[in-house]
């Protein structure tokens, strides 16, 4: 009995100290995360329930009206469709190219380190540089792309990549893959290097050839990496904005309009903040839902510690 009382009093005395130190050291980060991430995100959700405009400081709560307008707006559905297609196509290409380059520079070749560094360059280039560079490469008179295509005999007259409705998606996805594949490559490289060489030795002893080793060791060991890269690509591509905005601003017409450009346009050009916020909230909610489903799925969970 004596001991029990002692225990309780000590616990009570200690409780504040338990949070004091971590609290003090975490405070700067937590405050920043709150001010620049959580609070703004909450505000956007709140704005989406109001009739706020760019100019007005007074606005009123209108419930889900923005959303009901949104869901009956064909432009929204088209942008949604564009976003999904863009995510799937660009994301898959990123994973394919990233995986391929990772396999290449994982082999023992001279100057391997240099090649790895070089292949990472597109990733560290600012998007504005990438975007403007590709605009120039697409140019109908002085662009390299048209020049090369004409000289290869593939086309007869220059293609207006950013204007031609048939080619504009290609023109947007190409630089997107160009800047994003190195990140995927990095993730796959790390995963490839974490596979124990003993597994390959064991497979060789068991008589597996190079292709069989790839099929029965490399691919199964990369399952986690594929799942993770899949999730990250869905997130990054679905919310991507910069390249499309720099290259086409959603055009020509609304041919390359994504949810992100639609939201931006409504808030900063169309001046209907509430409506634009609703679009931004939809992006956020979709990503949130995808992440939850992904992280809760047995495939990911099974191998977590």
């Amino acid at each position, binding site marked *: 009995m004596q001991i029990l009382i002692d225990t309780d009093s000590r616990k009570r005395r200690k409780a504040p100290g*338990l*949070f004091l*130190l*971590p609290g003090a*050291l*975490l405070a*700067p*980060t*937590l405050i*920043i*995360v709150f001010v620049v991430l959580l*609070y*703004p995100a909450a*505000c*956007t959700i709140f*704005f989406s329930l109001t009739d706020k405009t760019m100019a007005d400081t007074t606005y009123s709560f209108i419930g889900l009206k923005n959303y009901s307008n949104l869901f009956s707006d064909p432009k929204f559905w088209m942008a949604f469709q564009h976003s999904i297609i863009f995510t799937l196509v660009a994301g898959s290409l990123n994973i394919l190219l990233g995986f391929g380059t990772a396999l*290449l520079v994982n*082999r023992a*070749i*001279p100057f391997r380190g240099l*090649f790895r*560094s*070089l*292949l*990472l360059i*597109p990733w*560290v*280039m*600012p*998007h*504005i*540089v990438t975007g*403007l*560079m*590709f605009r*120039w*490469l697409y140019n109908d008179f*002085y662009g*390299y792309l048209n*020049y090369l295509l004409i000289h290869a005999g593939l086309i007869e007259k220059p293609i207006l990549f950013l204007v031609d409705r048939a080619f504009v998606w290609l023109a947007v996805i190409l630089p997107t893959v*160009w800047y994003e594949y190195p990140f995927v490559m*990095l*993730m796959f490289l*790390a995963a490839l290097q974490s596979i124990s060489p003993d597994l390959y030795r064991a497979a060789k002893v068991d008589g597996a050839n190079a292709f069989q080793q790839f099929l029965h060791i490399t691919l199964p060991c990369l399952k*986690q990496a594929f799942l993770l890269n899949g999730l990250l690509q869905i*997130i990054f591509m679905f*919310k991507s*904005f910069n390249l499309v*905005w*720099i290259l086409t601003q959603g055009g020509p017409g609304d041919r390359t309009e994504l949810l*992100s450009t639609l*939201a*931006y346009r409504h*808030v*900063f050009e169309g001046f209907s903040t509430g409506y634009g*916020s609703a679009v*931004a909230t939809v992006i*956020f909610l979709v*990503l949130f839902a995808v992440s939850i489903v992904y992280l809760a799925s047995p495939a990911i969970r099974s191998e977590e*510690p």
Partner: protein
Amino acid sequence: MTSYRRMIQILTQVLLFCGVLGVTVLLLFPAIVAFGTSFKPMGEIFTQTPTIFPHEPTLAAYKKIFCMPEFPRFLLNSFIISGLTALIVIIAALLAAYTLTFTRFPGKKFIRQMILMTYMFPAVTLVIPLYFFAHRLDLLDSYQILIFADLSFALPIAVWLMAGYFEKFPLELVKAARVDGCNPLQIIRHIIIPVMKPGITAAGIFSFILAWSEYLFSLTLTLTDESRTISAGMHYCLMGNYRTDYGLLTAASTIIVIPVVILFALLQKFIVGGLTEGSLK
């Protein structure tokens, strides 16, 4: 027989090397031609048969850039904003990563995951309210608001990187320092910072690179050239008045990209290691 097999081996190696070389050149082609073009005189740029490297190299485009009043201003703005962002990020992330790695308290795992999950927040979602705050607080077109906005992506990734490095830091050293009489700030100052200097620098540099490349916030939250960073600056100049000056475009690109590539190459080992380490466990 053995020499035949050896031949095959060497041949495979050579083919593989050529393959990697080919893929690298192909992928870097846009960057290579841009770099080459930045040294071309006007006449070579605007020709129907473009070349990769200039026949008569010239620094004309670079001279022109530095004679434009805006461009040095953009560079300075970017430098100050990215530098201060990196500084704040290093301090905050260091304290946070220390706490998240070496202390035990309820809710730690939740906070760690929450910081990581913020990576999912679309920038478009954040920029809307940030614009209105800045407007209300009269911070539009200021360094402060851009630094704040940049923290939204730079800080979580830096905490993530540093926490990853610290996990490999021997716990016994922290214990020894505590027995030697250090408080947490002394442990960070005397033990963690000196031992983890490369990792901490790498996280800081990475924040700098991210802030240096940032586009959307700078585009939205600035009004004049006074505080515009290089990304927004290029957006306005090269999509506006200087739309077709490709010499200017490629030279500016080179100036912006070169420091980033050098910084990244120097610390690549740490940045790449830290980024991929925790995520693939």
